[in-house]
Structure formats: C-alpha cells, structure tokens
C-alpha cells in the first residue's frame, strides 16, 4: 500500500484536521489498520501513544460544525426544490 493513502472515514479526517493531527502517523484500530474517529480522539486526548502523531498548527481556527441540536433537525417542511 502506498504510504500516503490513509484509510479513515470523513469524520475521523475532520477531527484530525481540527486537532492538527497527521493521520498518516497514526496506527488505526479498525480492520486492516483503518483509522477510526475513536483513534483520533484518543490521540487528541493524549491517552494513546501520542508520540506517533505529529501535531502541526491548524491552518484555521477550528470551530466544529456539529451544531446538530434537536431543534435544528426537526422535519424539513419549508424546503424548496433544487
């Protein structure tokens, strides 16, 4: 497998960007070494072998878009076609 290809779902990739973690330096716990969101969270919290991870500065101020409050997600009624 080429070195630069990392197998990780989008959520894990976003968390890594948010935390400034270089995914290619992580050992994943998923099948075949796939990196899970939990793996990223563990490194971010420092409770894994975080020496593996190169922390680089985040290029933007990281704010999460995970603003999924229950009120936001009630059935969409006033949609418009597009």
């Amino acid at each position, binding site marked *: 497998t080429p070195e630069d290809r990392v197998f990780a*779902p*989008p*959520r894990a990739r*976003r968390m890594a960007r948010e935390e400034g973690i270089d995914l290619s330096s992580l050992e994943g716990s998923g099948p075949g070494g796939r990196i899970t*969101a939990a793996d990223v969270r563990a490194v971010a919290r420092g409770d894994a072998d975080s020496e593996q991870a190169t922390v680089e500065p985040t290029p933007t101020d990281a704010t999460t*878009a*995970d*603003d*999924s*409050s*229950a009120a*936001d*997600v*009630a*059935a*969409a*009624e*006033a*949609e*418009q*076609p*597009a």
Partner: protein
Amino acid sequence: MVVGDVTTGTDLLIIGAGPAGYVAAIRAGQLDLDVTLVEKDAYGGTCLNYGCIPSKALITATDIAHEAGNAEEMGIHADPAIDLAGMVEWKDGVVDQLTSGVEKLCKANQVTLLEGTATFADEHTVRVSHSGEGQGSETLEFENAIVATGSRPIEIPNFEYGDEPVLNSKQALALDAVPDSMVIVGAGYIGMELAGVFAKLGTDVTVIEMLDSILPGYDDDLKRPVKQRANDLGIEFEFGYTASEWHDRDDGDGIQVLAEPAADDSDDERLELDAEKVLVAVGRQPVSDTLALEEAGIETDDRGIIETDSRGRTSAEHIFAAGDVAGEPMLAHKGSMEGKVAAEVIAGEPSAIDHQAMPAVVFTDPEIATVGMTESEAEDDGFETIVGTFPFRASGRALTTGDTDGFVKIVAEESDGYVLGASIVGPEASELIAELGLAVELGATVEDVASTVHAHPTLSESVMEAAENALGHAIHTLNR
C-alpha cells in the same frame, strides 16, 4: 418401474432449494463440503418461481406501460395495450432463465441435486420420496442438515385455493387474462404489490383489510404516499373487515365476496362485494409440519417456526434451519444470509448471524424501503436520536423523472451521529436503501454520509441531503 430403496450418504443434506437452501448449498460447495440438495418442486423455491421474481417482473412491466400511458405532461402520447398472456409468458421465460441458472450453479459447485420430498426418519436419516406414480423413495444418511423448506400462503376459512375464482399469490401471478374485477383480502405487502399490478392492468380492485390501514408494521409517513397513489389508481379499500365467505352470483356472472366487520362490537353492516376473482394474501406460515421434525429432535415454536441460535443451529446440534421456516422477517435475502452462515458454520468457519442492517422493501408504487431501526425502535432501545429527512420534491433528479412523492429519512444516534436506520418511500427506494444499509452495518456517522460526494443529478443525493439535514445544514431544504 419402482425404484428400489437404496441408502446413500452425504456430509451435508439441505432440504429445500429456495433462496435459503440453494445459497447454502452453493456456499457449502465452495467450502468443499459434500452436499446433497433435496427439492420437491422447483429450483429457486417460492422466491424465483412464485414470489419475488414473478411479482417484480409484472410490477416492472405494468409500470413501463402505465408510465408511458400517463406522460402527456412530458409530451408523450401513448396508449399502451397489454397482452397479459404475452406478459406472463415473458415472465415465465425470466423465471426459467433464473431457475436453470440456479441448477447450473449448484452443479458447478459440486452440489448433488435430488428431486423429492424429504421427511426425517431419525437424527441422521431422511427418507426422500420421489414424485410421480411409482417413483418410490430412498433413504439418505447425513452428518449435518439444513432445513430450508420455506413457507406457504395461509388459507382462511371458506376460501380454498383449489377453487377456481379463489387465488393465492402464485395463482394470481399466472393468470393469462385480465380479470374485470378482483377482491384482494389482505393489505400486507403482497396484497398491496399485486393490487398495483392489477389496477394498472385495468382490473377494478377492492382491498379488504382487517386492520385500519395498509401495510401493518410500517410507519404512517411511509404509507401515506403509497395509499395516495393507490387511491389515484382507483383501488378501493375496506378497512376493518374480514372476508367470511364467497359464492357464485345468482346470475352466473362472477362471484360475491362477503366480509364481516372485524370488531365484534361493530354496528357496521356486512359487505357484499361483486368480483370476478378473489385473491387471498393474508400472510405466510412456515412449512415445518410435513417433515416429521420430531424424529430428528427439532423443535418449533407454536407458530411452527424452527427456533435457531445465532449460528443457525436448531435444538438438534447438527441440524440448522434457514429462511422462512426459521422465522421473521420472511424475506429472501434474510434466508440467503442465514443459508450462508449455516453453511459456513458447518464448514468450521467462525460465522454468525450478527448483521446490524436488515433491509426490507415493499415494491408498491412508490416503493418503500427500510433498514436498521426506526426512530421509535431506537428510542425504545435507549438511544437519544436525531433525525434527518429530505423530500424528493426538492430533488432535481426526481423532478426530471416526473416522480417526486416521498422522502428519505435517516435516524442517527445523537452524540456521535452513528446511523442507526433509515427509511425511504419514493422512486428507486429499493436501490437507494443499499447505501444506508452499508452505513448502518459499518457504523458510519451522518457526517460520513454527508461528506461523501454524491453524483449530480441523482436520487442518491437525497440520502446525502437527509444526512446533512440531520446535522442542521442541508443545502436544498430549510433545516427546520
């Protein structure tokens, strides 16, 4: 000529060549087991011969005609004529192609095929009696067995399937002339699928249902577009009635079906419905009473369902069961999955029935498809949930097909966003559900689904938008 009673042996005996049995046989053959597959009627079982395939063939064909005949809005003027005998002949050709394919695949995987009816003689022996006069029987010894005998349509009192105007689904799918009128007893998925077929063929259809709505077990929001389109097709409904009997009409012109109010305390009058045919589709029961299961120590529950553990094992250690005979949901793909697991376990692999995502499809117009948990199931299970929806009327692709009823709905776990289940009603629901099945099975999150680029313009974008809606930021719908 009477065939003498010979005793032969096999490592793995499989009884029934439906989607549970034949798939188990092929997988076992791939795993180098010595397999004998016994079938009394037709390779492919109910599904290929009388169920899934014939019904979907007629649904698709009548849809093609119906769609073209109702596309003036699109500038298409057609008045398609359907020759039902020709359509049924085509359908039979499709079935033949598939069933002979099953036979070839079994042989190519070194499966021994045996025609006949199997009954257990003891824990390691079956007798197989061949059909046809004087064809005799033989005895077969086995190490392991898989019971995959499927299910049969339930009969109701006074409606016997032998009687000419009374049809079960198998018989209804083989008619070669379009009935002028038909009463369908039961608004479950089989009744509703066939109601659509006959309505599109031009039959006046009336559906009698004991309960108060179509498709018991499905959420109301999913049923609504289906009920609406059934109404538009002119299908009549009588909810809260049970069919009680039928008789020929005095004038010899067709029959009359009588139905009583289902509730004992009802003041409603009984119904008298004139029709040419009556189709009974009130459910299916396991074929477990004709096998002498007790001889092998196999137990069933009080509905006749063979109980199995997570490996597919029955109460007899070395005997497995798969498919409709092993219980709900009585669906072909559930049976195939169980058949594969049983074959793998028998071959010594660490397989188990441990799916998270079991899809179910109703091929009505529009289609309904579900996978995983509904919102209320998830909440009953203790999950805090979020829900994302997207209506097809906001989908560009749906608009270009002229078919915009319905929606995609995704149920996810609140804190991490894991997709727990999904339901879709609308165009291609049967195909769109696959992506969400994979999402549930893999433990994907709504963010994962929302971040996956979906091709434009496709209906599958609606899946992405429903996931984005769950996150509060769908593009093509207001996130309220």
